[in-house]
Structures are given as C-alpha cells and as structure tokens.
C-alpha cells in the first residue's frame, strides 16, 4: 500500500474521529450543565440520582460503558442491533460519560462564585434565572475553561476507544492497516494526526481563554 493511499484511508478515519469529538461536545457540554444543576438541586431524589450517575460514569471505564451501550439493547431487551446504531452508540456513551465529568467541573465553578454576586443581583431585582444566565454563568465559564480544556484534550484521545465496537475511526483504520501491511507506519501517521488535532484544539481553547481575559 502506498503512503498516499494509507493517508487517505487514515484521513477518512479522522473524519469519523472529528465527528465523534464534535458531536460528543455538542451534547455533553449542555447536558453536563443540566446534570450539575440537578446535582445541586434541593430535591433529594434528583440530587442523589445524579450523584450516583456521576459516580458510575467516573468510576467505570469508558470502554466498558461503550460496550454496555452498544450491546445492552440486545442482551437486556432482545432488540437486534442495526449497523447504523454502532456510531450512535459511541456518541451516546461518550456524551453521557463526558457530561458527568463536565457536570463536576460546572459544579466546582458555580460553587466557587462569591455569594455577593447573587446578593447584588437579587437586590437589583434580577430573577433567579436572570441572575444565573447573565451574572453567574458567564463568570463560571471563564473560571472553568482550563479544566474544560483538559477534558476536551482527553476526549480527542478517547475517540480511539470507538475501536472497541469496530467503528471505523482513525485508530481502527491505523490498526487494520498495520496488521494487513505488517507496518508501523500507519501508527506513526495516526499519532501525528492525533497530535495535530490536539494542537489545533489547544490553540482554539487558548484563544477562547484569551478572549475572556478582558476582566478579572
């Protein structure tokens, strides 16, 4: 196999990796905020439910969760798994896993906000939701960007776990080429792809951080 064929195959795999990455963030970032609010709610059932959910998501391997989400419908409910489900199982498993991590980051950020901000808003007549959306959340986002960046970078590398249910993302492709062509080159190329991907994301996150630097 020529290098260019290999690279184009890896490139196709990369598109899937990027798609997994993007969709996971798209779903898990807002879901994480909802989970964080539930975790901090006064409703004991909601609070404990989310506490257990977060604990399980953080306490078991993502690969295991992925397998459960993918094979669960068949083994638990006897629903036959269509091949189209493969990709969405990855998105589902990744989103609920990452939402748990993001939830704890949001919670840390929200709880670090000084009480005075809430009180100032309250005296000025802001409602609870206005206070949260206008005063608290923007400041929380600035505070948690470094922690979010960490998770986002981990996510890029975690996309390779989709390999465990044979979704043809970049790592799966690299491994297939490596075993059929008896070469390491595809791994090296994949490594470079991942690194560049990470580098781009890190630059983007840094620029967001800089943008929010206008206040302290």
């Amino acid at each position, binding site marked *: 196999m020529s290098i260019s064929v290999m690279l184009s195959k890896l490139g196709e795999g990369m598109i899937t990796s990027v798609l997994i990455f993007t969709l996971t963030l798209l779903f898990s970032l807002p879901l994480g905020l909802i989970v964080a609010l539930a975790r901090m709610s006064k409703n004991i059932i909601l609070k404990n439910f989310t506490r257990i959910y977060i604990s399980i998501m953080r306490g078991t391997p993502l690969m295991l969760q992925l397998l459960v989400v993918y094979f669960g419908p068949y083994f638990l409910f006897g629903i036959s798994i269509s091949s189209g489900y493969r990709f969405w199982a990855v998105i589902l498993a990744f989103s609920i896993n990452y939402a748990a991590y993001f939830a704890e980051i949001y919670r840390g950020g929200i709880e670090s906000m*000084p009480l*005075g*901000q809430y*009180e*100032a*808003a*309250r*005296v*000025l*007549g*802001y*409602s609870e939701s*206005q206070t949260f959306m*206008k*005063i608290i959340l*923007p*400041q929380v986002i*600035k505070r948690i960007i470094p922690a979010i960046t960490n998770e986002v970078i981990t996510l890029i590398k975690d996309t390779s776990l989709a390999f465990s249910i044979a979704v043809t993302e970049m790592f799966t492709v690299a491994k297939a080429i490596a075993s059929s062509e008896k070469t390491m080159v595809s791994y090296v190329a994949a490594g470079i792809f991942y690194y560049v991907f990470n580098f781009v994301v890190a630059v983007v996150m840094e620029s967001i951080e800089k943008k929010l630097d*206008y*206040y*302290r």
Partner: protein
Amino acid sequence: MEIFSIKNAKKSFENNLDVLQDISISVAKGEVAAIIGPSGSGKSTLLRCATLLEKMDSGELYYSGEKAAWNNEEGKTVYANPEKLRQIKSKFGLVFQNFNLFPHYSVLKNITDAPISIQKRKKDEVIQEGLVLLEKMGLSDKADAYPFQLSGGQQQRVSIARALAMKPDILFFDEPTSALDPELTGEILRVIRSLAAEHMTMVIVTHEIEFARNVADRIIFIAGGVIVEEGNAESLISDPQNDRTKAFLNRLQR
C-alpha cells in the same frame, strides 16, 4: 412621609442566640439615619432583613406604605408575592461593604443593565442618566473600564451609582468604607455627604462615628439585637444616656 419602616423585627439563626430581638425603625423622606453598634450586634442582619436578603422570623416591613412583609395570626412573617417584591425592590438600593460589582460588565453596564433589563426603561435614557451619575461620582473617564481596573474607592463609587441608577426612594449602606484602605474612605464619605445634601433618604450602617455625627440626622445604637439608644446624631454622640452607648463610644475613642 414615611419611606421605610420595619416593625418588631425578630430573627434568630439555628446555632446562634437571637440576632434581632424586636427592633423597630422607621425613616422619613429625606432623613439620614446611621446605625452604629459593636460587631455581632445585629446591625448587618437588620440591614439584610430590610433589603430582603434575609427573612425575618417575625415582624413587618413597609416601603412607602406598601407592605413587603407582615405577620400572620401566629405572629410569623409572611412575605408579599414575588411580583410585588420585585416592585418593592426597585424602591430601595443597597451598597455593599465589598461593592459586589459584576466583574464581567464594564462600569457603565454595571450601572445600566438592571434599569434596562429589569426595570425595562428606555436604553438611551438610562445610558444618559448613567453617564450623568458617573460624572457626579467623578468617574466620567471610567465608563468603559472594568471593575478590576479601579481602586476600591472607585469601585465603591460605581456601586453607589449602580444603586442610584435604579432611582430608589431610599439607599442602604452596609459599612461602605470598611473594606477600603483608610486613605480611600474620604472619597466615599464625601459622596454620601453630597447625597445627604440633596436630601436622599439613607440608612447607613457604619463604624465611622465622626462621619455619622456629621452626616446623619439620627443615630441608632444597636447592641445585642436591640436598640439601646437612638436620637439626634449630635447629642447621642456628645451626650449618650445609656451606659452601653457610653462604653461603646469610649472604646472607639480610645
């Protein structure tokens, strides 16, 4: 005309003794009242109850004759519905010890956001008024600055402007100079003095006895959750009647 009154306010916290034991204060239009007292006396709690940041166990609260809170048959405080309370909140302003400006908003936005988005007043008008207020505070050149770029004294002046922008009938101050370096307290006291000259109704919790004596019409001395003594500012300071007042003032002067 009575702008503000709190009647028979009682408040206790779970782990503490009674912080407020039956305190009543009313403030007339244009009056400046200073509340003094040792720390832990309940003066901050009183202010927090008055500004709806804290709920009274029992007692009544009125703003310009409108009921914010009253007692039910069992003598427990009942608060007006949220919509009513929201209206009432625009009748008073509170200046915090720690300013509590919104750090992600510019100075001008700190002042204008609530009048525009909460009071739904016309944007252009509010911005004009905001700029006038900033000029009055000597901060015309800081409209586009962010709070972290300002000194403590400047931040506190912005927070006074923010409270005034809501056009309140009465302004409460919770130890407005306590978080400031000594050399910066003067500028805040000057601003409050000029507001007094314009007959702004104010209630000021303060440790600055000399200032209270100068600017206030009336001084209320609180200790142990009760009003120990109150009266004309000048005479309460120079000729206190109660032993606890005397002891407190003596301690301060030493």
